[in-house]
């Protein structure tokens, strides 16, 4: 730890604020990315289930 002298509070709080804002940004980005990907996978899986079924139905008819 370097000696920050009388400005320790300022320097440290600047780093703390900035890094936590960055962490928040990265966190929300990753979170949303993950949840959207999951939701999309679900919907696509549902569609893939239906599609063969629908194909079969048309073939049978």
């Amino acid at each position, binding site marked *: 730890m370097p000696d920050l*002298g009388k400005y*320790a509070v300022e*320097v440290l709080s*600047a780093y703390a*604020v*900035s890094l936590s804002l*960055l962490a928040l940004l990265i966190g929300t980005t990753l979170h949303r*990315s993950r949840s*959207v990907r999951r939701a999309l996978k679900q919907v696509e899986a549902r*569609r893939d289930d239906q599609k063969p079924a629908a194909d079969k139905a048309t073939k049978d008819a």
Partner: protein
Amino acid sequence: MSIWEYANPARFMRFSRTVLPWVSAAAALLILVGLIWGFFFTPDDFRQGSTVKIIYLHVPSATMAINIWVMMLVTSMIWVVRRHHVSVLAAKAAAPIGATMTLIALATGAIWGQPMWGTYWEWDPRLTAFLILFLFYLGYMALWAAIEDPDVAADLTSILCLVGSVFAVISRYAINFWNQGLHQGASLSLDQEENVSDVFWQPLVLSLVGFGFLFLTLVLLRTRTEIRARRLAALKQRERVS
């Protein structure tokens, strides 16, 4: 092959998937090295004491804040002219990053201001211009959020981005006219005398480039998410009807 091919969503997804690991690794490496070097291994400034260490966050975030708006302007115009969805979604994805960068620049600046100028906030032109920039980011994001139809939202936010940019420039001039401030001049321009010395300069450049890569990482990631969200919405809508 033209660059426009990447405007196809599927191609963009493939491309971004290959580059993302590299870009994010570069971002992590550069920022870590830059910040650690800057924080632990640089001397104190003779005038500013240890507060000079704030520069490694302040200047990169401030620089990115402006450049991200420029990037949004460019991609919005590409949408207006060529109607490439990926382009405007990249602008949408970049806005929150830009807003966060602006906020970091404002916060670090404010914290820096207390020891240097004796006040957290001063209506100095550059600080003021940043505040306005922040408002532009907020307005841009609010407009995206308020409109349901994605293409309508894309068109309107693009118009806002264009007009807003013009006004941002005028505001900058007006603010300078209104108050001549306390803030440092540009010190990265090499021909200036008040250049920060090399000790500070080298980690600063690392951190600057690192922030650039961080932005790249995030904007690619977020654009991917936006594209997926569009597809998700389209599929869901179709599911509901059929």
